[in-house]
């Protein structure tokens, strides 16, 4: 039976040959991903249960100490430091996503309402920051908030900060940087949904005397949901793990989980703890997305 001739896309072949050929095509890419993505991931889980040697080397001795540390338990009792960092990362990612969504709606409606020719220019204006390196955009904020520039001078004149200090590191600087970095990640997918919007539904809702809020919730939101979902995921996931923005604009005062991970692989050289924090981040991201997808379904049902 195995050698029975079959016709596949115009070619007379057998199932076995077809299978062999397909495997040959898959082998390169899949083995690359297995070796450099899946295996490292599994190894990472293992490492998070390993021990750090005195000089930062890996000792394959099973322990759950790394997770205990992440939860705040140490030789000196319980401290919530790491948990605060984890919670803060969720909070920053959430607020960044929310603000980006709120700003993206007017922006994508505005772009969609432009005449065809200038619409392309406006769209390019959003695509360029999307593709500009994150370090450069963060650096630009870093510079804009530095002591010699008008923004900081104004704050100094108003007495918010002492003479000669920049407007960072603090939470506001982190949020400014985060929103400007991630905003295009929401706007672009959202725009692709807004562009296809069926306006007759909006008009129908208006004709039936819906409040503005109801028009948005029942006529616009469901239609833009696909783009919005992509935008939210594209923003939330990287925002949780980002470390360039909080590193330059938040400093030690406003550390996020990305900085904590980077520290373990950089200066502290504590791979097992770094792996444990990474898995913590992974789990938090999954939980948040899970909550979102459940809430998202409710919105669709409404």
């Amino acid at each position, binding site marked *: 039976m195995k050698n029975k001739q079959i016709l596949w*896309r*115009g*070619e007379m072949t057998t199932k076995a040959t*077809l299978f062999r050929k*397909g*495997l040959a*095509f898959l082998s*390169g*890419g*899949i083995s*690359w*991903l297995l070796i*450099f*993505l*899946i*295996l*490292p*991931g599994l*190894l*990472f889980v293992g490492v998070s249960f390993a021990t750090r040697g005195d000089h930062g080397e890996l000792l394959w001795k099973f322990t759950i100490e790394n997770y205990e540390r992440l939860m705040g338990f140490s030789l000196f009792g319980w401290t919530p430091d790491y948990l605060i960092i984890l919670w803060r990362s969720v909070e920053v990612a959430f607020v960044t996503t929310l603000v980006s969504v709120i*700003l993206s709606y*007017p*922006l994508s409606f*505005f772009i969609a*309402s*432009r*005449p065809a020719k200038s619409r*392309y220019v406006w769209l*390019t*204006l959003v*695509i*360029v*920051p999307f*593709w*500009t390196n994150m*370090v*450069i*955009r963060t*650096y*630009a904020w*870093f*510079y804009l908030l*530095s002591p*010699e*520039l*008008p923004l900081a001078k104004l704050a100094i004149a108003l007495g918010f900060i002492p003479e000669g200090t920049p407007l960072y590191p603090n939470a506001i600087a982190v949020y400014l940087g985060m929103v*400007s970095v991630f*905003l*295009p990640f929401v706007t672009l997918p959202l725009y692709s949904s807004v562009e296809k919007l069926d306006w007759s539904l909006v008009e129908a809702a208006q004709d039936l005397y819906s409040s503005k809020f109801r028009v948005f919730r029942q006529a616009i939101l469901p239609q833009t949901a696909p783009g919005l979902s992509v935008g939210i995921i594209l923003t939330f996931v990287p925002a*949780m*793990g980002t470390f*360039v923005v909080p590193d330059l604009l938040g400093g030690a005062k406003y550390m996020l989980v*990305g900085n904590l991970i*980077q520290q373990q*692989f950089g200066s502290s050289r504590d*791979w097992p703890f770094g*792996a444990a924090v990474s898995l913590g*981040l*992974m789990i938090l*991201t999954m939980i948040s997305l899970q909550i979102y997808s459940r809430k998202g379904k409710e919105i669709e049902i409404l």
Partner: protein
Amino acid sequence: MRNCHPIIKILALFTVWFLYLPLMGVAVCSVNSARDGWVWKGFTLDWYVKLFDNEWILNSALNTLILAVVSTAIATVLGTVLAIGISRFPWGRKTNSFLNMMLNIPVVIPDIIMAGSLVVVFGILREVSSMFDMGMIDMIIGHVTFQIAFVALVVRSRLALIGQDVEEAGRDLFASNWYLMRKVMLPLMMPGIVAGAMLAFTLSLDDFVLSFFLSGPDSQTLPLYIYAAVRRGVTPQIHALSTLIVLVTVVLVVGAERLSKKEVA
């Protein structure tokens, strides 16, 4: 198209202004002859000229380019072949969902986790061979790993668009495997392959985290250079370099847009 409410318009313009304010500030200062501060002392291109005297910057630019070109080349070949393998064979439901998962993981996983796990793997491989010392090879492997998935996703959607009729027609006309691949499938797939390669290239230029984790002393890239320079103190040279990179990005974006429009026409 409908008109939009003035409030929406103001909000939208504010948002665009917000996106560009910092970049504009940096661009203005990059042509200001004052060394620091917000005082206009006349137009100059000196800071740009000086960039080309700085060996560190030239080296970093070269590294950035090598990294992007080599990783894109590898990822485009592997990703394209993978996409053909996925969509041209009658895989079962389970295999298909496995393949889908493999393509989606690199897209959704936070890059810092990928970087961390590669640091550990290369740390272990280093004991076997010094080839895996922190540096260009590690960075290329890291970049290819996330690029493959993006290339494969783009090429796969192009393959879905092509459909199977042309292939069957080719077979009916007695085209050999090789002829069919080279003269029929490849030209049809080309727009997808080019789009995938461009995406991979830009992703490589955009990356900071993987390079930051995996780079060695001789493999600094431009984003790493800027990041390190900021910690030492802001200089007009960095303004010039950043502005130049933004301009290159503009050229790439507009170029890609033009190219994709041509494909459609």
